């Protein structure tokens, strides 16, 4: 249970970090270390070089860009939890972040690290998927944007290259008064969830749903948008009956199976959690109405 031998680097700029990534062919970036360090201690990964990006300045800001919030790749989960900007403009993320591990892990763990680790039930990738975030990655001599829809390539596999690093995440915001809800089921508080559901609703006067975004985590190999539910809601007036019926569509999602839960159980959770999240989101929307769904 000790890290294997490696050469340690602590670059002070993104340019230096990506130059190292380009030069070393078996290197790992070290961000918050809350996933990489366990993997090193257990020797699941054996890098020749570890590139610590904690000493790079200016990578951890949360910036208000008008219609979006832009997070530096090294933004700590704790700073998201305590950010007034996030609480006011992106309440879904605030609700979700409280489920990410524990205070001790949020003090170190980062947004970029969570995106790159890409656990299928990790909260930040789910929220990023729900809000249609755009991830900016940089390599030696180039910067590009990856839309969240194209970001996951497979189970714990983001679509950026080995010589690229996540430098920022741009999260477009929903209009003031939108409804939101993040609910998850985990065996204990702070554990990775078995399944989660993230819901955003833009509700017009009279309770008519103008736009809906539904993301389930922990069901597929990466967070999934449930377009069948989104389409079924758009243009409709929110009600207990509608939400109860439409959430059943989550049972049709192709679900994974592991030691924690069989596929049918994840499908079941996806439908129950989405139903509850829809009720909560609609209740919170300025133009919605109070309702409780179990």
């Amino acid at each position, binding site marked *: *249970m*000790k*890290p*294997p*031998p*490696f*050469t*340690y680097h*602590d670059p002070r700029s993104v340019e230096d970090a990506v130059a190292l990534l380009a030069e070393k062919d078996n290197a790992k970036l*070290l961000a918050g*270390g*809350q996933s990489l*360090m*366990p993997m*090193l*201690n*257990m020797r699941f990964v054996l890098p020749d070089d*570890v590139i*610590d990006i*904690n000493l790079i300045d200016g990578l951890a800001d949360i910036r208000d860009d008008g219609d979006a919030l832009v997070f530096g790749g090294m933004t700590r989960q*704790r700073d998201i939890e305590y950010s007034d900007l996030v609480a006011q403009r992106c309440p879904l993320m605030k609700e979700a972040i409280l489920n990410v*591990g*524990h*205070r*001790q*892990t949020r*003090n*170190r763990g980062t947004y970029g690290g969570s995106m790159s680790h890409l656990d299928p039930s990790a909260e930040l990738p789910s929220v990023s998927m729900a809000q249609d975030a755009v991830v900016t990655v940089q390599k030696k001599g180039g910067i590009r944007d990856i839309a969240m829809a194209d970001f996951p390539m497979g189970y714990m596999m983001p679509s950026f290259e080995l010589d690229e690093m996540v430098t920022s995440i741009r999260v477009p915001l929903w209009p003031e008064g939108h409804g939101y809800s993040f609910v998850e089921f985990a065996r*204990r*508080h*702070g554990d990775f969830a078995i399944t989660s559901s993230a819901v955003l609703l833009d509700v017009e006067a009279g309770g008519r749903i103008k736009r809906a975004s539904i993301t389930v985590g922990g069901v597929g190999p990466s967070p999934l948008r449930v377009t069948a539910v989104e389409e079924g809601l758009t243009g409709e007036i929110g009600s207990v009956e509608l939400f109860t019926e439409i959430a059943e569509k989550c049972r049709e999602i192709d679900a994974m199976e592991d030691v924690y839960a069989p596929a049918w159980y994840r499908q079941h959770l996806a439908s129950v959690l989405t139903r509850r999240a829809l009720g909560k989101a609609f209740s919170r929307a300025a133009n919605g109405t109070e309702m409780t769904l179990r």
Partner: protein
Amino acid sequence: MSDRRTISVTINGEAYEREVETRLTLADFIRHEVLLTGTHVGCEHGVCGACTILLNGRTARSCLMLAVQANGQEIMTVEGIAPNDTELHPLQQAFQDNHGLQCGFCTPGMLTTLIEFLGDNPDPTEREVREAISGNLCRCTGYQGIVAAALDAAKRLKGKETAGA
């Protein structure tokens, strides 16, 4: 060939300079190099919380940090909580009075975790306390005594503040 660096770290107010292998975890640095064995190592993969220390006032799992990452930083371990050799910190006293420990293995992590938590949230509910220690495993107490100690400590710390004001 091992990759080594010289680091200097302040622990409980005292500066330590050592040459270490870069792959050494902070937990092992504290225990094996500085010989402060109050910080415990249970799982070495971030799950049990026994190795929790305060890094510049914020909790961190010392098994999930490299010692080199603490270069130039300030650390507080369980040994640094009591004000002197004869007195206990109010949180420690509350642990003793409420049966907050049995074998004591989890205690260093519980104390450091609660020091930060009670700073962030001086007036917590029982539920908030349970959530705060959800990342710390205890195999002995069944947690009741720990929760009681934390709530009691919150009261004592607040009393102290008003008394001092």
